[in-house]
């Protein structure tokens, strides 16, 4: 090894955005460095400038941004001592283009919108290869297929011809990872690369990244909120708050000797599996939102108190998609794909059902069918006894006010041409609630309750950070004061402190107003914190459903067990065994009783206590009990 050097050195980087009558200082004199072959984790508050740093390194920050400082890149492939200041390179010039994609790969935080909707996945992944390598088309295809397999696609050949909007959130994220890695970069900027992935796949990806790191000496700037991931993969950690570096050090230093009050608050806010039911998460700023006031402006009727009747009842939901792969006019019709397969469950009023499961298992699709955004092929959705799918006219109008959804993709679910103020007041406007001033008040209360500021009301969605957008989505879902909210990965982009604030808010609302949640998440700790019962999905079916404690303590289904085993812990003393995780993911490794094989009828077997698991109808009880 020659003399030690930094792969990337960021010195005194500042980035500001102009805003009417002011400016947003997204990054303030931040400095950090990356060693070759090492992982530096960048953690910090939502909106603290992490993504902006990532983009600025590549020179793809928005045109309006004003940047100062130095970004020194010391390419190991270049002759020693040849350090380039990336900032000084001409925008989109040849020099920087040679680095982008080839030497520095980037995984964007929002994989959902970072793909062009009109090009196939294969085409877009292949593109970097096409520019930076001299491979033949066949070789390239081979490589793309390999990469797709590596990131966990069971059928890469099929994925190559698919369009982004046909993939689930997690699948898109994996495609994004494949795209960033395809050229074996020296530096990978991974902006929350695993938020949309279930823990087993997350583990697989992390292992892949570590492999590459070891094999190719790839360095990684890992932006993440999951301190568990940090503890497991990072060598060094940089903590940011409001655009400034608050604390930096080795993983050991950070986890064992957190010094800055912010970092300590952050550590405290991590949800743990051993939390008591009533224990609350500790946000950075212990704000108490007056839940009644928040919704009084908008709420139509107070929920009926009393026993816990079933609010939402889902029976036999099924949905099949026909991929649009067959390009060209006369291509053969592609095989239809069953995304959701006979899903049934109930949620009582005031209860939270956690929905976890494999990426691409149909969780989002179920959620969308519940809110009647997608029409199921078969099945029934009953809201307090009313058929959701059959509602028309005034009934539908009422229904729309009772059920809301927080979308997994915060970017595309916010109209790009509306200010946040308009977005938040729109639902009220639609249902003629209050006057202009009252609506503005309501919007203000909503935006504050999710930790944003008044001035954000006049900004457009694109100018927010990922976490901020997600919070706007939550605020909008709350605006109408619905009874049921489908939260599809509602807090995946939030740092733990803000997450704590939002989760507490949701819990308070539930407590005070009896809100009901269908809570889709990959973060099992969060699900554990929020849910009363948890359902686990795999390949379009619910494989296990049980009350929270039961599922956490005595998971029956091998997939559930694999999931639980793959959760990374924010504790350097309990590292994840990457070599073993993910074994339970594929049904091949499952015991026969759970293995879905042609001809074998599968049913939900009741294990008592509301614990049901999907198994062969003829399976022996003992085989099923853990």
């Amino acid at each position, binding site marked *: 090894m020659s003399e030690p050097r930094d792969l990337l050195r960021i010195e005194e980087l500042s980035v500001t955005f102009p805003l009417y009558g002011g400016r947003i200082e997204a990054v303030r004199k931040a400095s950090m460095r990356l060693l070759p072959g090492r992982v530096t984790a960048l953690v910090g508050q939502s909106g603290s400038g992490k993504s902006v740093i990532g983009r600025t390194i590549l020179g793809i920050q928005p045109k309006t941004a004003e940047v100062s400082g130095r970004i020194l890149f010391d390419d190991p492939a270049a002759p020693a001592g040849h350090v380039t200041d990336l900032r000084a390179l001409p925008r989109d010039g040849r020099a920087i283009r040679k680095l982008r994609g080839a030497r520095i790969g*980037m995984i964007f935080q929002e994989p959902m919108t970072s793909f062009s909707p009109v090009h196939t996945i294969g085409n877009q992944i292949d593109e970097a290869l096409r520019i930076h390598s001299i491979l033949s088309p066949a070789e390239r295809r081979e490589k793309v297929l390999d990469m797709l397999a590596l990131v966990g696609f069971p059928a890469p050949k099929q994925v190559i011809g698919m369009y982004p909007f046909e993939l689930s959130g997690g699948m898109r994220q994996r495609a994004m990872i494949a795209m960033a890695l395809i050229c074996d970069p020296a530096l990978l900027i991974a902006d929350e690369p695993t938020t949309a992935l279930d823990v087993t796949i997350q583990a697989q990806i992390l292992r892949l990244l570590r492999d590459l790191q070891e094999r190719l000496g790839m360095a990684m700037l890992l932006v993440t909120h999951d301190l568990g991931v940090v503890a497991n993969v990072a060598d060094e950690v940089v903590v940011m708050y409001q655009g400034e570096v608050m604390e930096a050090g080795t993983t050991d230093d950070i986890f064992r000797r957190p010094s800055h009050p912010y970092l300590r608050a952050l550590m405290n806010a991590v949800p743990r599996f051993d939390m008591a039911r009533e224990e609350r998460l500790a946000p950075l700023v212990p704000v108490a939102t007056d839940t009644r006031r928040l919704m009084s402006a908008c709420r139509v009727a107070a929920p009926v108190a009393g026993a816990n009747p079933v609010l939402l009842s889902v029976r036999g939901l099924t949905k099949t998609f026909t991929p649009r792969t067959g390009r060209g006019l006369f291509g053969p019709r592609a095989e239809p794909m069953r995304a959701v397969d006979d899903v049934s469950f109930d949620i009582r009023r005031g209860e939270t059902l956690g929905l976890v499961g494999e990426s691409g298992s149909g969780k989002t699709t179920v959620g969308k069918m519940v809110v009647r955004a997608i029409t199921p092929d078969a099945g029934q959705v009953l809201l307090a006894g009313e058929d959701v799918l059959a509602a028309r006219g005034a009934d539908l109008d009422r229904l729309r006010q009772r059920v809301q959804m927080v979308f997994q993709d915060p970017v595309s679910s916010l109209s790009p041409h509306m200010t946040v103020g308009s977005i938040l007041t729109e639902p009220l406007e639609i249902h003629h609630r209050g006057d202009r001033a009252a609506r503005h008040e309501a919007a203000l209360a909503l935006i504050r309750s999710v930790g944003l500021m008044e001035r954000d009301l006049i900004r457009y969605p694109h100018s927010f950070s990922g976490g901020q957008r997600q919070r706007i989505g939550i605020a909008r879902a709350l605006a109408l004061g619905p009874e049921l909210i489908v939260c599809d990965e509602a807090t995946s982009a939030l740092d733990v402190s803000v997450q704590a604030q939002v989760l507490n808010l949701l819990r308070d609302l539930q407590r005070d107003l009896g809100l009901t949640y269908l809570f889709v998440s990959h973060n099992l700790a969060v699900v554990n914190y929020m849910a009363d019962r948890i359902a686990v999905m795999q390949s379009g079916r619910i494989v296990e459903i049980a009350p929270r404690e039961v599922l956490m303590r005595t998971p029956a289904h091998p997939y559930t067990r694999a999931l639980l085993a793959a959760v990374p812990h924010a504790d350097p003393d309990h590292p994840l065994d990457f070599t073993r995780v993910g074994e339970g993911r594929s049904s091949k490794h499952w015991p026969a009783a759970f293995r879905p094989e042609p001809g074998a009828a599968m049913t939900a077997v009741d294990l008592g206590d509301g614990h049901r698991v999907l198994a062969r109808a003829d399976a022996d009880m003992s085989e099923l009990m853990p």
Partner: protein
Amino acid sequence: MIRYILWRLAVMVPTLILISMLVFTIIKLPPGDYFESYVQEMRALGETADLQEIEEMKARYGFDKPVPVQYLHWVGGMLHGDFGYSFEYRMPVSEVVGDRMWLTVLVSMATIIVTWVIAFPIGIYSATHQYSWGDYGLTFVGLLGLAIPNFLLALIMMYFANIWFGISIGHLMDRAYLNQPMSWDKAKSILEHLWIPVLIIGTGGTAGMVRRLRSNLLDELEKPYVVTARAKGLAPGRVLMKYPLRMALNFFISDIGSILPQVVSGAEITAIVLSLETTGPLLIRALQGQDMYLAGSFLMFLAFLTVIGVLISDIALALLDPRIRLEGRAAK
């Protein structure tokens, strides 16, 4: 897709029937008929018309029959490939068009190609260099072309082309080559004459194209997927071509339906001023003189092309953007 195309072809039949009725109404709408206007025109020149022949033709072409019968006669004829008889030219409609058709297509195609060749780079330049001097300058020139009526522009260009370059006014070729078989010299002469009409007809379209392209591109340029593409190290030009441009083409593709008929109808008024040997003036004269079969058959031909163009445009749209599902909405 094949099913969709077949279905659309089937739908074309009632559409075309409807259109044929409309066309027939339009050519029948003006009071009077060809013979009336012919007699009047002759009279205005102080001459007398050959009334006998006119009476004869009137009877022969069923002008005394009720309108629905005339309509059926006309449509029936067209189904047999008989497009009627031109009173003005006194020969079957199919023979009147003659050379004009390919000359029209030549002018129109040249115009369209020139329009595109000019408009695309300029539109892209204007969008990527918004509010630069180049953007303003090109916008100004383009709008100038748009703001001056084509016939005036034609007149001005002809006049000055004649005064300065000695190019004879109007037409598509030197008179010497008329009715001559195609030859090298004739082609050269056509090319020499072509640029004026192409430039004139192209001005308005080019400016429109540039402005539309510019604004559509501006919308797309900052989209996240463009940033992604840049992060892959794609050159700005390539990024532009592959992503925003393709998205911005949506408007353009949806308009193919009207391009096709334009190709054969030509810019009528400019063609009249420039005395081009194209079909535009033919159509206008036929309409003015109420040469109804000539006008009607021509309009029907245009309508047919429109319908085909719309179909092509729909298919192209679906190919361009996979989100567009023409066969109905699967998800909702």
